């Protein structure tokens, strides 16, 4: 086979990374390149430098070091038995690409993952080597996210955390049975064990940092994980439960959901149809309800239907409100923050604005209109000085009134 060009390798290894949902480049320690030799800065908030037509943000150069793999996970395009074109970068090639993209302001940094070649340890060492060259030889101060391999030795994973802003370990599937069936080479205990060790190291490093100013940082942007949705039959309630246990047990910054998408050369064990993309969106919304709106995992699960899945036509907060109508209407002039956060259509910012404003005036409906994005969504669930939704929350057709009317049209 003729030698692949850098561009061909990039095409293959970016294509292989496109199923990964995570993209964040925020929440790390502040860094800049003043007084250094290289480039790069991180200022808390990540920047999306471009958006692809799939709606996803491009913040990092997200590629695999190689898509050769000795594992045979059914949902994965790179599995051993797949017939995809294979390619392999050298660590130096990844370093050069990252730097030339970064200098032109295309990216915030690098998100590097890899198929497993030779052994988990060998692969992890290669990933770490890329980060080491960037940090040590080029004094790169941008963002680095390394995917870590739970089967690799703890010491190599530890080294990854010393160079990277964020590390992640994929749980892959919401249930252990799903994992056993679809990722026969992976092991749930091993994955959670590695997550647990990473959590300990993050905590230790934070603690040391309090005592010694020059203690090395360890993954200052924390750890995250990704779960594939729709490849097995786990319902939304099971997925939400799993995510919340992961947040609690391992102090994860984010759980990413990746709707299983049809992959070329898919294994026969997989479903033929992709799950609706909206399902992934509803799961993210439920994630927000738990992280920012004070919903308990069980409450989100209560918003799901009899099959344990969240409705697709309305968001989970509205679904919850329609199911628990006795909690409404909420008086915007009197209700505490927790109750205001339960009102469909009121986000955290709108709630903050309402709380600040009502110290100055008794809010009327047109005041609320100025403070929220959509009054129509909010109106059936609130009362103001001049408004009370008479029995509206009891109307049987309320759901119909609040459900978006038209199906989204096909674009082409």
């Amino acid at each position: 086979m003729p030698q692949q060009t850098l561009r061909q390798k990039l095409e293959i290894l970016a294509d292989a990374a496109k199923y990964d949902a995570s993209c964040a480049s925020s929440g790390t320690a502040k860094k800049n390149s003043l007084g250094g030799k290289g480039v790069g800065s991180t200022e808390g908030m990540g920047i999306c430098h471009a958006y692809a037509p799939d709606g996803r943000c491009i913040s990092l150069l997200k590629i695999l070091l190689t898509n050769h793999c000795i594992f045979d996970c059914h949902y994965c395009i790179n599995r051993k038995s797949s017939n995809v074109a294979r390619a392999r970068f050298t660590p130096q090639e990844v370093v050069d690409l990252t730097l030339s993209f970064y200098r032109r302001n295309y990216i915030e940094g690098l998100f590097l993952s890899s198929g497993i070649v030779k052994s988990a340890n060998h692969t992890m060492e290669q990933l770490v080597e890329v980060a080491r060259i960037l940090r040590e030889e080029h004094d790169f101060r941008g963002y680095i996210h390394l995917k870590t391999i739970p089967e690799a030795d703890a010491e190599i994973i530890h080294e990854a955390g010393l160079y990277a802003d964020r590390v992640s370990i994929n749980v892959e599937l919401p249930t252990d049975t799903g994992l056993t069936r679809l990722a026969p080479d992976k092991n749930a205990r091993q994955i959670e064990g590695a997550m647990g060790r990473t959590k300990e190291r993050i905590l230790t490093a934070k603690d040391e940092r309090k005592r010694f100013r020059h203690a090395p940082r360890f993954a200052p942007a924390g750890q995250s994980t990704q779960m594939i949705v729709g490849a097995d039959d786990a319902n939304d309630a099971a997925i939400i439960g799993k995510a919340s246990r992961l947040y609690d047990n391992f102090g994860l910054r984010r759980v990413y959901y990746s709707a299983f998408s049809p992959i070329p050369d898919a294994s026969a064990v997989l479903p033929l149809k992709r799950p609706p993309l909206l399902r992934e969106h509803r799961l993210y919304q439920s994630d927000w309800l738990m992280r920012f709106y004070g919903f308990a995992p069980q409450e989100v699960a209560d918003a799901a239907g009899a099959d344990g899945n969240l409705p697709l036509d309305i968001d989970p907060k509205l679904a919850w409100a329609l199911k628990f109508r006795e909690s409404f209407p909420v008086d915007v002039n009197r209700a505490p923050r927790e109750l205001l956060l339960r009102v469909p259509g009121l986000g955290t910012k709108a709630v903050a604005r309402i709380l600040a404003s009502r110290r100055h005036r008794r809010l009327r409906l047109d005041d609320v209109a100025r403070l929220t994005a959509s009054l129509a969504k909010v109106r059936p669930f609130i009362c103001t000085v001049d408004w009370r939704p008479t029995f509206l929350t009891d109307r049987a057709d309320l759901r119909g009134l609040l459900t978006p009317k038209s199906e989204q049209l096909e674009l082409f």
Partner: protein
Amino acid sequence: MTAMQHVSLGAHYAVHLPAPDDFAVWRDRARGLVQCDVPPDRVSWVEPGGTGDLFAAEGPSRSEKRLPVPPADAPPVRASKRFLELARHAALHSDPARFGLLYRVLWRLQRNPGLMEDKADPEVRRIEELAKSVRRDAHKMHAFVRFREVEEEDGTPHFVAWFEPDHHIVRAEAAFFMRRFANMRWSILTPRGSIHWDGETMREGPPARRSDAPGGDPVEDLWRSYYASIFNPARLKVGAMLSEMPKKYWKNLPEAALIPQLIAGAQAREARMVASGSLDMGERPSTLEGVGTAIHACRNCPIGELDNRAVMGEGPLGAPLMIVGEQPGDQEDRTGRPFVGPAGQLLDDYLSRAGIDRSAAYVTNAVKHFKFVWKGKHRLHQSPGAKEIDTCRWWLEAERTIVKPRLVLALGASAARGLLGKTVSITRVRGSPTALDDGTELWVTAHPSYLLRLEGEAREEQARLFAADLAAVRERLAELAG
């Protein structure tokens, strides 16, 4: 003595700002005017090239007065921290009415120090909106500036970008780029002014034109390749893209030129992904005859293309035992029946010795077609690959769903993979049951052809194990029939 007494009530003032983003001068003048108690409708704010505050009560032509000087004992002007924070951003907005708005709110703050908390107040809300769109513009500048590399006369690289901001943010955002690219020489050219960093000092320049910036960079090709490859055509969401990357920015983003063709090709690309991968085999047949017909036509893996026929399993519906081999061999392919060749005869032998009635069992293979290579006139058996077994699993599962055996006996690793979807070690799993997805018991043992290849003690040892496995299966079947 109050400030009021110093000012004639009817006077109009025009404040000429030296630059449209000069918050410091605005702040200084506004402070003086408040101290002189000049009400908002008596002040026009004029930025360079502008005609002043369009909403001022009087035009600026009548108001060319020197600004009043506040008395020495004038009370200090107060503004909340929140106001300053927002005003600093709002002042950079391109709305010509912004300075007048800021002055009105500053004026009101003197009587109502908590005003900024009243988010429902229309003027407070407006300032928040202005500040928000300035922050968004700044954020988009951080994101969408695209440097192109040019070589200076001294051979050092110089990175030059062209950007078109909506608001007067260029000077304010220079520091961001300095912190990020401290060790590069760079310039950002915009229609509102330009900034240059040489690695040590920042320099401001006049407004620029697009043609002043370089036209391309060889790395852009790589970047475009990346952009096209990281896009997943199975997830087209154009609306989500447009809300974050509005079309007005596209003309200066090298990758954006690809968007129309990526969108147009997406559905075809997804269809290809699905077609080449998860084969659309439609509904699974619900009868064994249906499966038998369908497998003849199956070309989902290359084995189906060889010169062979599909071999269907045989045995009664509802058979308590299902025996699964690897694939038909030469003789099975000729006769169209499973397990009739040498390995089949050996199997029959062991089954009858173990007390298992083959005719009561359903006997089939993990792979339905014979895989071989020609060697002279002979067809030489070849083991099916993992992918081929996984593909054929569709049919095996169909048979299992229809026959509904209580116990499945897999002969060899390929058969086990056909049922489990993964490769297991026979030595590790033999002798005890493994549960299949639906709870059915799977027992795994060696393939009889393995025994045929062994000789001497090794064969005796394996024969003993094979017989023991079959005996265990017979006992278990009796229990299940219980």
